[in-house]
């Protein structure tokens, strides 16, 4: 096993811990921190997979943007209800069955298909990706930007709109 492997399994552990916190934690903040650890761990794994750009984006957008957004949401709703933010779960059994079924299905039926798949190992550089984004996927990139803009505006509008 190489050092990369150790890192990989280390990130895996962090992620599993985060997932665990999200799945079972009773406190919303813990869940949010669990999500944070998951996202950070994912960024680490992206980096290990030599997708440096994505790792950075992951950190910046997700861990920075989305998570902050969510934390705001948590704080705002908590302020409104004046109640401690407890997580309640329902249909845990059904949910876990479906989730486990999904997991097993994926592992058992789909997983073996990748056993033979091995990575070529050619690292995609930041440069090539940037080139691709701005050449091959330009339109998509522009559209994504527009979508982002619209959604930000929409979010602001929705959040701020007053009830009549």
């Amino acid at each position, binding site marked *: 096993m190489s050092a990369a492997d150790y890192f990989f399994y280390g990130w895996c552990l962090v992620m599993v811990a985060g997932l665990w916190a999200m799945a079972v934690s009773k406190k919303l903040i813990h869940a949010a921190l669990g999500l944070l650890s998951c996202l950070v761990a994912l960024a680490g794994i992206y980096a290990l997979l030599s997708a440096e*750009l994505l790792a950075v984006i992951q950190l910046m957008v997700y861990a920075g943007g989305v998570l902050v957004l969510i934390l705001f949401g948590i704080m705002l709703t908590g302020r409104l209800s004046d109640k401690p933010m407890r997580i309640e779960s329902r249909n845990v059994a059904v949910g876990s069955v479906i989730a486990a079924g999904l997991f097993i299905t994926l592992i058992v039926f789909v997983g073996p298909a990748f056993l033979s798949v091995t990575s070529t190992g050619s690292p995609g550089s930041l440069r090539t990706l940037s080139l691709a984004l701005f050449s091959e996927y330009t339109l998509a990139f522009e559209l994504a930007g527009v979508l982002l803009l619209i959604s930000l505006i929409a979010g602001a509008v929705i959040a701020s709109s007053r009830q009549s």
Partner: protein
Amino acid sequence: MIATHHIFILSALLLSVGVFMLLTKRNAILILMGLELILNAANLNLIAFNQRYADALAGEAMAVFVIVLAVCEAAVGVAIILQAYRHYATAVPDQISELKDPA
């Protein structure tokens, strides 16, 4: 190199936990988190398989777009939650019963 199928298992786990949260949590924010997890699972797969076809770079590009979408979704979602919360004074989707038939 990292074994692809290990990554796959990890992403399956992410997906499953995401679905689980989606199905069971009674708080809209946590459901949103579950959604994020599902999206991340997809991202992880995209990136992992991009390794296999590294010269195409379609996977990574796709992952970028997914992240963008996730951000959009998160922004709009949190806004909707806040608004709904204001309206119904709850963050529990069960109690938002507009979709439900009047029993």
